[in-house]
């Protein structure tokens, strides 16, 4: 049974710059993210991946087209209304973690709950719970400066999922990590998608992430140029092979 999309981009066009410097970063992109699915958005540098992620995350407004979050159109929404949508439905993970260096791991997670109006003992307990869930129960009071890159990214994952958003958007989450930590973070995101029925979109050009994808969407020059879905019963290595075969064929 096909589930309803939680986040949907409909015919998105995004123009950047003005005058002679104006460029069309996205040229009519449509895509949908469904629960329990980890989608990879792959493409070369300058293909429009991050612009699309920003628009899907209601951070950038499209020049035309619509972003629907759990069925609700965001056309005409003000910056404050878009922030409300982000608070309610979207969690972010960034390439350079974007943790608050002056806050401990648990405080970094708590602040994501605090902006959503969740504070006090319950918020502290929830922050601790998600940090333990990502394997950082022993690093609760550590500051980012005293943690490894992998640990910091796991704090960022905990921060993204603490408020139980419908969608988690990750921008190059493995780019700054070594192989072991990269796999650990991707495994964590795949588990979040499956066990917590969230939709996870990972913008990446890291081939190590392929084994964890349910779907791979390829973008080039501001257009979706291909989409591969892991066939039912196909396990992770097979989709990697599929990708390799496709690349060789191209």
């Amino acid at each position, binding site marked *: 049974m096909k589930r309803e999309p939680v986040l949907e981009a409909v015919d998105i066009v995004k123009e950047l710059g003005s005058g002679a410097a104006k460029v069309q970063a996205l040229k009519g992109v449509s895509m949908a993210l469904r629960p329990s699915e980890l989608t990879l958005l792959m493409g070369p540098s300058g293909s429009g991946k991050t612009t699309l992620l920003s628009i899907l995350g209601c951070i950038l407004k499209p020049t035309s087209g619509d972003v629907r979050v759990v069925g609700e159109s965001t056309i005409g929404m003000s910056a404050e209304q878009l*922030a*409300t949508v982000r*608070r309610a439905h979207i969690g*972010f993970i960034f390439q350079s973690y974007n943790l608050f260096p002056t806050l401990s791991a648990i405080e970094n997670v708590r602040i994501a709950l*605090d902006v959503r109006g969740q504070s006090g003992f319950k918020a502290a307990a929830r922050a601790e719970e998600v940090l333990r869930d990502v394997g950082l129960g022993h690093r609760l009071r550590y500051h980012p400066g005293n943690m490894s890159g992998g640990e910091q990214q796991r704090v960022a994952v905990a921060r993204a999922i603490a408020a139980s958003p419908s969608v988690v958007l990750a921008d190059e989450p493995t780019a700054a990590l070594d192989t072991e930590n990269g796999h650990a973070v991707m495994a964590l995101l795949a588990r979040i998608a499956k066990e917590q029925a969230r939709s996870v979109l990972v913008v990446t050009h890291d081939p190590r992430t392929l084994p964890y994808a349910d779907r791979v969407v390829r973008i080039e020059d501001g257009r979706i140029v291909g989409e591969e879905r892991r066939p039912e019963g196909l396990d992770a290595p097979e989709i990697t092979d599929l990708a390799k075969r496709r690349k060789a064929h191209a």
Partner: protein
Amino acid sequence: MILTLAFRNLFHDRVRLAVTLIGILFSIVLVAVQLGLYLGSSRMITSNIDNARGELWITAFGAKSFEDGGLLLHSAERHQALAAAGVAEVIPLVVSFAEWRRPNGGSTRVVVVGTDPEDGGLVPWSLTDGTWLDVKSPDGIAVDKSYLAELDVKGIGDTAQVAHGRVRIKALTEGVRSFTQAPYAYMPISRARHLLGAPGDATSFYLVKLQPGADVESVRRDLKSRFESAEVLTAEEFRDRSLNTWLFQTGAGVALIGGALLGLLVGTVIVAQTLYSSTKDHLAEFATLRALGSSSGYIHKVILGQAGLSAVIGYVLGMIIALAVVYASRGTPLPMVMTPWLAAALFAVTIFMCAISQLSAIFKVTKIDPAMVFSK
């Protein structure tokens, strides 16, 4: 979490925090000193009026202050006043500058204050050595301890020449200072007239006490209609007139208030600079907050939290220094005053200054682009 983040942002860069606090300290201490001096001056100017017991003052026309009464009133005005309905008592006061000849040569000016406290008008206050009974003994006067050196005397028992007669110090007051720096010399009214060579009924002011239930305004109207060359002022009006004369017509008050405003301005600029650069340094974090879905109000609260914390810390440190200055100024001719109201007003001013200082920072984060979180 708002205060936690504000606190951590603030203490993250200790050097900048120190500069911020120095800006606030500078401002608080300067404003406290200037306003403390203003209050101290105001108290000195109005202390005799505030300690006199009477609802109305009859003064010579145009008298500008307590020291400026002249000796132009006579018993006729007293009798006219006593005839008015609602008047219970009319008590004379004699106030005039006079020359004090120092025992070891030279002279200085004093303000002779002739009063008979038995009448219930102006009762010398803060008598710490000797009593009014002592002052009533032959040649007796009371002066303030802080002016003994200025008057070239050592204390009780010493004598000097004032205008036309000899006086002997019989009592000392403490903290009764004069804005004009001419010490007050309190004595019975008859001795004052004698020293000044004034006629037996010459008077500077009449203090009018009203009968219980009498309406101050209607009595004043009645009294005004009876005098051609005298004015009738409420105690409040006489206070204001004295303050206006000494503080604003001489420019002293304007200088004090101007100094306070300047302190506030310089402090605001320093604090604005440091808090703005702090906000700029944390811009990526504020963009992350925005991307996480925080409202702009949440970010403003963090910034204002930083301002509030700076204000509280700066205020506490500033007040410690200001109170030390107040304490050190106690024995000087121009003591500073710190009242609970002034302390509260300074706190409000500090909070306001820090909040205003953050306007540029708030303006900066209002324009923040959350998409900057994706810049590598």
